[in-house]
C-alpha cells in the first residue's frame, strides 16, 4: 500500500475513533467536537468544489464555449442569490429562490400526484378478498382494515357525535400505526447497526489489517 494511502487510512481511523469517543464522554468532549467540525467543514468544501467543477463547468462554461449563451441566465440568477448578504439589495435574492421553489414544486407535484396518490389508490383497489387464496384474502383483509382505521384516525373535521361513534375504529387505527412505527424503529436500529458495522470493518480490516 502506498504511504499516502496508509496516512489517509490512519487519519480516517483516528477521526472515526474521535467520533466514537462520544460514547465514553458526552459533555465537553473536545475530540468529538473537533472531529465533527472537521468532517462537516470538509464535506461542505467537497460539495462546493464538486458543484463548481462539475456543474458550473460542465453545464455552463462548456456550453457557453460552444456558443450557447442560455446557460448564463441561470448562472446570473445563482449569483443574484448572494444579494441576500447586501442589505440594500436583499430583496433581489427572492427572485431566484422563487424560481427554484416554483420549478421544484412543478416537477415534484405533478409526479407526486401520479405516483403517490393516483397509483396508490389504483393499487389499493387490487386488494380483493374474494376469488383469491385464503391466505391472500386474510392478508388483504388485514391491509384494508388497517388502511381504513388509520384513515379514520385522521378524520378531525367530523361532527363530535360522529367522531364519538368512530372512536373504536380510530383506536384500532392507532394500534396499527404503533405497529408500523415499531417496525420502522426496528428497521432504523438495524440500519444504524449496519452503519457502525461498516466503520468497524474499516477499522479492523483496512486500518489494523486483521483480516
Amino acid at each position: 500500500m502506498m504511504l499516502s494511502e496508509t496516512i489517509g487510512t490512519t487519519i480516517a481511523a483516528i477521526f472515526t475513533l474521535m467520533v466514537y469517543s462520544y460514547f465514553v464522554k458526552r459533555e465537553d468532549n473536545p475530540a468529538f467536537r473537533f472531529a465533527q467540525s472537521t468532517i462537516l467543514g470538509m464535506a461542505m468544501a467537497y460539495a462546493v468544489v464538486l458543484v463548481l467543477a462539475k456543474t458550473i463547468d460542465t453545464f455552463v462554461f462548456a456550453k457557453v464555449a460552444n456558443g450557447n449563451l442560455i446557460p448564463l441566465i441561470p448562472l446570473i440568477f445563482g449569483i443574484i442569490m448572494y444579494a441576500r448578504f447586501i442589505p440594500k439589495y436583499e430583496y433581489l435574492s427572492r427572485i431566484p429562490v422563487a424560481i427554484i421553489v416554483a420549478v421544484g414544486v412543478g416537477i415534484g407535484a405533478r409526479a407526486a400526484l401520479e405516483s403517490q396518490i393516483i397509483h396508490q389508490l389504483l393499487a389499493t383497489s387490487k386488494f380483493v378478498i374474494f376469488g383469491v387464496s385464503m391466505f391472500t384474502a386474510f392478508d388483504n383483509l388485514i391491509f384494508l382494515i388497517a388502511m381504513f382505521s388509520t384513515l379514520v384516525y385522521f378524520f378531525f373535521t367530523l361532527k363530535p357525535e360522529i367522531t364519538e361513534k368512530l372512536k373504536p375504529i380510530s383506536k384500532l387505527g392507532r394500534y396499527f400505526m404503533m405497529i408500523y412505527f415499531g417496525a420502522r424503529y426496528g428497521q432504523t436500529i438495524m440500519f444504524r447497526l449496519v452503519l457502525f458495522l461498516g466503520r468497524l470493518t474499516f477499522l479492523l480490516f483496512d486500518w489494523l489489517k486483521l483480516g
Partner: protein
Amino acid sequence: MASEKQSGIYKLLDLNRRWIYGIVVLLMIWALLAPPGLPIAIEPMNREFYETIESLPLGTTGFLEIDMSAGSLAAAGPASVAIVQHLLDKDVKFVAYSFLETAPVLWETEIFPKLDTSNKQYGVDWVYMGFVEGRENAMSAIAKDFLLPGKDAYGTSVEDIPILKEIKSLDDVDLAVFGGSSGYYQEFIRQFSVPYKKQSIMWIETMHLSDVIVYYPHDVVSVLGGLPGVAQYEYLRGKPGDALVLQDALSMVHIFLIVLVVIVNLLNITQRGAKTQEIIQK
C-alpha cells in the same frame, strides 16, 4: 424505578448502556474475525429481485442510478457491486448516473475495482456519466436527455461514446435500477418509474424499506432490502461477498438484542407484579 437500587438479577434493569455498546462491539468483532456461518433463509421478495435480473432477455437496456454515501458503504457497496456485476453478466447495456455528490468517488474506489469487466467494453456495453447536481430537477432533465452533461464522468465527449448513440433517454431503456443509499428513492419513482412506465427494480436501505414497499409491485416490480437482502442476493448468485460476512455479524447482534429485550421486559413485568403484591399485602 431508576432511583431505587436494584438487587440480584434486577440489576439488569439499571444496566449502564455502555455495557450494551461494549457487548455489541465485541460480538461484531468476533463475528467479523471468525464468521460463525449462520444459516441463511431466502425471502421471496429477494429471490424475486434475483430472478427479475436473471430472466432478462438478451438485448435488454438499462438505466442505473448509483448513489451512496461513505457512511452506508457497508451495505451499499456490496449491493452496487452485486447488482452491476449481475447486469454485466446478463449482457445488459446500461447508462449509469449519480445524483449524490459522494457517489463518484465511491464508484471509483469501491465499485469499479471490484467488477469483472474482462469481456465488456466501457463506452460500448456500459457508461458512467458521473454526478449531476440538482436532485429531482436534475433527475427530471436527465430522464429526457442522457446526453445533457455533454461528457461522461471521465471527460469523454458523448459524441465519442457508442452506447449513447443507441440509448439517449429513458424512453430507450427497458429497465430502471435504483442502487442507492441516498434518500432519493421517492424522486426515482416519481421521475423515472412512474412517468416513463419502466420496469423498475430497487435496492434500498433497511430504513427506507417500508417507504418503498408501498410501491411494490405495481410501480416497482422488485425490491432488495438492506444488508440482509444483499446477503441473500449474493448467496443466490453463488458469489459470496462482503454482505454475507457482515450479515453474520448483524445477525449475532440482533440475537443478543432480542434476548436482552425479552429478559429485561420479563424482569420489568415480574418486578411490577412483586411490587403490586407488596402494596396489596400492606
